[in-house]
Structure formats: C-alpha cells, structure tokens
C-alpha cells in the first residue's frame, strides 16, 4: 500500500464527511443533543444519576451513527455514483480504500468521544479508569456496526440504503438502552432488544464504566457475534456496482 495514496484517500474521505452536514448532524448533533436533553430533564430516563447512565449509552450511539449510518450511507452513494467502480480500475486496492475509510471513522469517533466525555463531565459525570476498558468495546462495536452499514450499502439501492440505515438507527436507538434503560421495555421486546448490537454495546460499555466495573458476559458475547457475522456477510454480499 502506497503511503501517499493512503493519506490522500483518507484526506478526501474526511473532506467528504465534513462537507456532508447532514452526516455531522447524525454523528455529533443527535448524540450530544440526547445527552444534554436527557441529563437536564430528570425523570425522563428515571434513573438516579441520569448522566452516569447516559454517557456510556451515548458513546455507543455515537459509534452506531458513525460506523453504520454515516459510513454506510456515504458508501452507498459512492456505489450509486460509480465511484467504487471507477476506483476498481486504479492501482488503489480494496484494502487501501477500506483502510482509508476506517481511519476516517476512527477520527470522527475520537472527536465524538472527546465531546461526549467533556459534555458528560460538564454535566457532573466522573471520568474513571474504566474508560480504558471501554475503548476496545467501542472498537468491537465499530466493527459490528460498520459491517451492518456496509452490508446495506453494498446490497441496496442508494435511496433504499438511506432509508433503511436511518430507520435502523432509530429502532436501535429506541431498543438500545442508550437514552433510557432496557428495563423500561416490555419483557418480550427487551429479550429481542438484548440480541441486537446496540443494546449489547451500550450494556457492556456501561458495565465497565460503572463505579464497580464488570463486563456483562452475555451482552459481550452478543456484541462479538455481531462483530464477526456482520462484516463476513458484508464481504460476501457486497456488490461494487449498483
């Protein structure tokens, strides 16, 4: 892999992301908005220290918005516009393209995490050493959500991908234990929700960030299964041309 093309590709990927204001709204605006709103208006989340509950959930939401929604929608349109096809006859390898996209996702996620943690701290959240354990979990979550995003992007028409990715974002937000606890869901729905990657990520991150840290193994297993299965499905079903 040529260094020059990798950094040029990563630069353009970043440029494109920053120029898509709607994507910045999804990746930064919505997570921070939910954090501030639910932390300030007590009783909505009905937990004792809302900000302690919210920060881990919003970190998971941020990962989902970047790796699944933003990456997936952008890639779907690149497929629609023939960009992926055109790149296929240049010396840029698929690995190179994927690396540049990964770097882009990670840079956005770092930015999100810094802003979310800073906002959380401003709202009274205590930053603990558990954050070091949260990082690998968030990375596993990134792999899982990127796999889902790329699976949709590589199989659906660009418009359908846009709709499905946004719809899925909402469903996973509601069923993800991010803004309010899973315990508020009916038992049957909760059982289903716990099998989804959103709840798995928010539960594990919350587990390691609480005052006496612990990793909920069942949620962790669910997360790992998604992180393995989704990218494999994406690799298998992804079509470079619409």
């Amino acid at each position: 892999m040529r260094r020059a093309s990798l950094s040029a590709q990563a630069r353009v990927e970043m440029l494109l992301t920053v120029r898509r204001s709607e994507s910045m709204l999804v990746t930064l605006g919505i997570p921070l908005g939910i954090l501030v709103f639910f932390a300030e208006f007590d009783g909505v989340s009905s937990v004792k220290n809302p900000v302690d509950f919210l920060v881990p959930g919003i970190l998971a939401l941020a990962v989902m918005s970047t790796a699944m929604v933003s990456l997936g929608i952008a890639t779907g349109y690149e497929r629609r516009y023939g960009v992926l096809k055109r790149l296929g006859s240049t010396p840029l390898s698929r690995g190179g393209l994927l690396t540049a996209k990964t770097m882009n996702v990670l840079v956005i996620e770092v930015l999100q995490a810094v802003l979310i943690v800073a906002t959380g701290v401003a709202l009274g959240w205590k930053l603990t050493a558990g954050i070091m354990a949260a990082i690998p979990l968030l990375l596993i979550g990134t792999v899982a959500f990127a796999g889902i995003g790329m699976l949709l992007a590589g199989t659906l028409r660009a418009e359908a991908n846009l709709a499905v990715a946004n719809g899925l974002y909402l469903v996973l937000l509601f069923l993800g234990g991010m803004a309010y606890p899973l315990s508020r869901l009916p038992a049957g729905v909760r059982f289903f929700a716990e099998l989804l990657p959103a709840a798995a990520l928010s539960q594990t991150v919350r587990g390691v960030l609480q005052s006496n840290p612990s990793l909920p193994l069942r949620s962790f297993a669910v997360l790992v299964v998604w992180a393995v299965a989704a990218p494999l499905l994406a690799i298998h079903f992804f079509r470079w041309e619409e």
Partner: protein
Amino acid sequence: MEPTAPAIEVVGLTKRYGERLAVDGISLSVGVGEVFGLLGPNGAGKTTTVEILEGYRQPDSGSVRVLGLDPSRDAKVLHPQIGVMLQEGGLYPGVKPLEVLQLFASYYDNADDPERLLQLVGLDDARKTLVRRLSGGQCQRLSLALALIGRPRLVFLDEPTAGMDPRARATTWQLVRELRDDGVTIVLTTHAMDEAEHICDRVAIVDHGRIVAAGSPMELTERVGHEEISFNAAAGLDRRRLGDALGLVGDAVAEIRPGDYVIAAASTPTLLADLTAWLRDEDISLGDLRTGRRSLEEVFLRMTSEGRPQQGRRPEDQQA
C-alpha cells in the same frame, strides 16, 4: 512484452447475461499506438467488451490479453498502466476537480501534474466548483483528465464525448491525437460516426455482440460505398417496385432511416433518369439526391440493426 506484440489481443470472446448473449464471439487486435474505435448501437456489446478488457468482468469464453496480461487475474500489474473513462459516473459529487485529480495522482508512481491536466481539458475555471455542480460535459472532461492522470500506456474511453459541446469535443479529439503521437494506445466506444471518422485509425462495427465490419474508416466507406445513390423522399416508398423500375434485383433499395433511401448501384445517367422518371410517375417529390461515396454513418446504419428494421439478414462474421 515484445515491442511488436499488440496492445490488445482478443480471440473468440463471449459474455452472457442470463439469457442474453451480450458478446458473441468477438475477436480483435489493437496495435501499440493505435486509436481503435468500437462502433455500434446501444446494447451492441461495446461496453461489455471494454469492461472485460478493463478487468471489470470475466469473459465466459475466449482469450483476452491486454498489454500482455490477463486483465482480471493480473489487475494489480495492469491497472497502473491503463486509464479508464467509464460511460457514466465515477466521480465523487462532493469534491472539486483539482482535489479529485490530486487524489488520483496519488495512486500512481509517475503521475502527471493535476494542474496541467485541469488546463488541458479546459476545467481551469471550474477548479473551485463541486463536482455535483458541474455540467454533464464538464464531468466528462474531468473523467477524461482522471483517465490520463497516471500517464497510462493504454486508455479506454467509453463514449468520451457524449454530452460535450462542440468545442469540448474538438478539444477531446485533439487530445486523443496528441496521446497517439506520444505512443499511447486508445480504445474508444462511440456511436458518433464523425468521431470515429476523425480520430480512429481503425474501427470495428459491433452489432448484437458481433463484429459486422472492421477496418480503417476509409476502407469501410470505400468497401461498401463507392457505387450508390442516396436520396430523400416521403417515408415508406415501395422499395421493391422502385427496384423493379430501375431494373435492379433483390433489396438493392434500402430505407436506412424513414425517408432516406440508398440504392446500391453505380450512378449511371440512365439509372438517374429512370429514378427521376419513376418519382415523376408516382408523383413523389425528391428532397435530396446524392451520388458517390458513402459516409461512415451510412455504412454504420447499413451494417447494424439500427438501419435494418425490415428483416434480419445478418452479415457474415468478420475479424478486426
């Protein structure tokens, strides 16, 4: 690769999409430094053929060598040496022309100067415009510049001037000639006959996935064109009766487009007199009467299904 080896060598290429045979036994050879045109109506199999040469698609059968390589198996070695202009798309809507040229330049070891190419294709004024705000013709020119940024030895241009204004077309043709002078091999598809006549050293006319005629534009127009009369009159004349009146056999009279007739016979004074006499007797007014050599466009219409709505007598296969 030996210096005498052709840039492209295709033998017996076929490609099937479901029931449809998109490419049906195409063989062709393109020499180094040649401008080779694939002509044909939409759906003739031009793009499929080119995309197999570019390594996008696998042939069902036949052998394909591009710069001595197998385009899909040796893609890693081939791609740095070729430049590709897709029929449509291929551009990030959210970047500016110079940005995408710089990006593509980074892919190649010995890339051309993005600024130079921007000027060469006349997009200097549009350097700060996002691709999504460029006109169709401007996008085409940017795609062309991107095909050339890696200083390729071989360039594929799929309908390069579609959507371009006349000046941009002329610039593009000039660019193609300059590339050829530099020893670059060019394969292009087009259905603009004047384009093929102006810039191609050799053309192959493709129809229904087969090559129906091949040669230099001059050879093609001469081979089929030196003895004929063409005229323009009301559409739907009874061609058989006209043929009888002129003492010609079979389908000597063709209607290549509604109202445009071609008589495959030498334009003797007697024949012209018989033609005008028949038109007088039938009370048909004559719009336009030409004799002599056919243009490539007429050859094309004559050789492909676009000009043969009547019956499907398929010309024999020919090799390019």
